[in-house]
């Protein structure tokens, strides 16, 4: 039983890291009022870039760094259109997703389906990794897993809720006109945190192609970016909740893998539907069941609305 639980949690932590990373980045962008629906495309292009860069350099860290840069660059293109030019955020996000999916398949053509020789391999941390159940899951894996669940959410939580800058960020997402009136640079904050969010999405792609799968193939992101966007809503735009939600959905996928490995009499495509159906249930049910939660978990008030100084 302990063995099974450890195995499930280990798989969940590994697979859920993709969703957690992407959701953390998206939470940042949405906190400052920008809905970035380009996550799926940015993850895809991050995954392809990471595979190419890791192969060329022989180091997964170079792959990760390249993916972070490409994710940030893609998000900068999105933010130029959606924040600087104030074009419709939904359209720009979809366009970024199309661009990312198309470009990644084009540049990744040469390495599609190849198993990657350089990947993030498990590096157990002494002492911590010998804690039962959670040790192997969070500290016995590659060196990205525990930062994703513990370090990054803590940093983002402190940034958002315990610094003056974080207060400004949230003000930009809730009431940009008021923030502008007291001298907060609304457009700059929106632009740069959208770019940082894109860097997270690129990193999530690298983590997928260098640690989880590990290989690049067209369509490998398969909706994980969209699930991450949904998880941000589900998490109430809070970093620890977002990371936890990623882990929860890692667990749903892990149960699917377990079913396939044990030969449950359910077809593989049906088991693969679980994360999507789970996400659907998790964003609808809380709203229906706990109406009081709606206010506490509500989206930033100015989410998705471009800011025009002249119409305040």
């Amino acid at each position, binding site marked *: 039983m302990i063995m099974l639980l450890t195995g499930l949690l280990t798989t969940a932590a590994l697979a859920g890291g993709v969703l957690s990373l992407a959701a953390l980045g998206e939470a940042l962008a949405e906190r400052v009022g920008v809905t970035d629906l380009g996550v799926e495309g940015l993850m895809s292009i991050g995954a392809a870039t990471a595979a190419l860069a890791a192969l060329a350099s022989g180091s997964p860290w170079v792959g990760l760094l390249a993916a972070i840069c490409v994710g940030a660059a893609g998000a900068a293109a999105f933010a130029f259109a959606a924040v600087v030019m104030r074009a*419709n955020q939904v359209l720009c996000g979809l366009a970024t997703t199309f661009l990312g999916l198309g470009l990644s398949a084009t540049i990744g053509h040469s390495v599609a389906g190849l198993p990657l020789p350089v990947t993030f391999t498990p590096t157990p941390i002494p002492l911590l990794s010998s804690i039962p159940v959670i040790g192997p899951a969070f500290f016995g894996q590659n060196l990205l897993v525990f930062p994703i669940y513990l370090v990054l959410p803590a940093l983002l939580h402190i940034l958002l809720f315990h610094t003056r800058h974080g207060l400004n960020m949230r003000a930009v997402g809730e009431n940009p006109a008021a923030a502008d009136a007291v001298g907060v640079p609304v457009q700059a904050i929106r632009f740069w945190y959208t770019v940082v969010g894109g860097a997270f999405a690129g990193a999530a792609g690298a983590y997928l192609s260098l640690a989880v799968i590990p290989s690049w193939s067209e369509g490998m992101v398969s909706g994980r970016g969209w699930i991450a966007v949904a998880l941000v809503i589900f998490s109430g735009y809070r970093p620890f909740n977002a990371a936890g939600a990623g882990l929860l959905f890692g667990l749903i996928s892990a149960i699917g893998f377990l079913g396939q490995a044990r030969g449950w009499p359910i077809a593989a495509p049906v088991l*693969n539907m679980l994360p999507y159906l789970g996400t659907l249930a998790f964003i609808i049910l809380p709203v229906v069941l706990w109406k009081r939660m709606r206010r506490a978990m509500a989206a930033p008030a100015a989410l998705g609305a471009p800011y025009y100084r002249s119409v305040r």
Partner: protein
Amino acid sequence: MTRFQRFPTAPARLVLAWRAAALVAAALIVGVLLALSGRDVFVLGELVLHSTVGSRFGLEDLALFMTPLVLTGAAVTVTSRIGLWNIGGEGQFYLGAIGAAGVGLYLPGPQIVVLPLMALAAIACGMAWIIVPTLARAYAGVSEIITTLLLNFVAGLLTYWLATGPWRDRVTGALASSGRISDAIPELWGVVHWGFPLSLAIAAGLAAIMTWTGWGYEVRVSGANPGAARYAGMPMRGRVIAVMLLSGALAALAGMFEVAGTVHRLQGGMADNFGYLGIVVAVLARRSCLAVIPAALLMALILDAGIVLQTQQLAATAVLAITGLVLLLIAIGDELAHYRPVAPASSTRSGVAA
């Protein structure tokens, strides 16, 4: 100095001008990238012209691409009229294909009876597929964007499972494909089937309903000004539900036309992004059901040009990247169309003072 001010409305001629500029910019970017990768852009351009509007095969292909695009584009357009986004056209397309294929595969009978039944089954399946996001939107205010989208992946897996599992082709053993469906929409011109004029007629019919009926008026008001609609006592919730179901039915009908008119089987991956491209078509059409037709033509031209690029050792998905680029530039252009030059404010103010 002339000042540019943002206006709440964008006049059609400005929108058209900015869009033409956006398309030229997109063509330039793609052309430069192709030239940098060592391809002769002018030879490619000639090939593209020949394989789209310059030959009979090209024109037939255009009509075949347009048929599903008009319907998925109309599906997104009707929801945008009430201020919603149905991003689930891809999934509803699959469900329409599943419904049509199920009837076509397992219901014997004369074609004249089976074909309408296939369409009805497709519409029922498409509506069933969008009902959960619809009710979540109407009664709990859950954003329909994510919920409709998530179901696309489920629908894709469901189609794949049916085509490789229970409904797989046991005769020829074709991969990820059901058996051949004998009931087909009759052909009209070459490989172009009656689904093409039918889809155009549906778009025109929707435009008439939206413009000239009380129902269409209430939908438009609910989208343009929800507060006013509620104050006037319009049944907003009922309109939202009806519009979403209509949208699901339209996308599903595209799936039925594709099964019964072009593919004649249920295949994994057969939606081929038509559902997502419907969003692009709807954006191009700017909420007008009639404008969906020229918008679908433009999208079909891009897809058809993509086939030429594939023969030039470019990945099939390069056309998706080009579509993304076009959509991004057009989104910027549509926003820029809101800006018009106004008389310099400073001079009038000083004029009053003097």
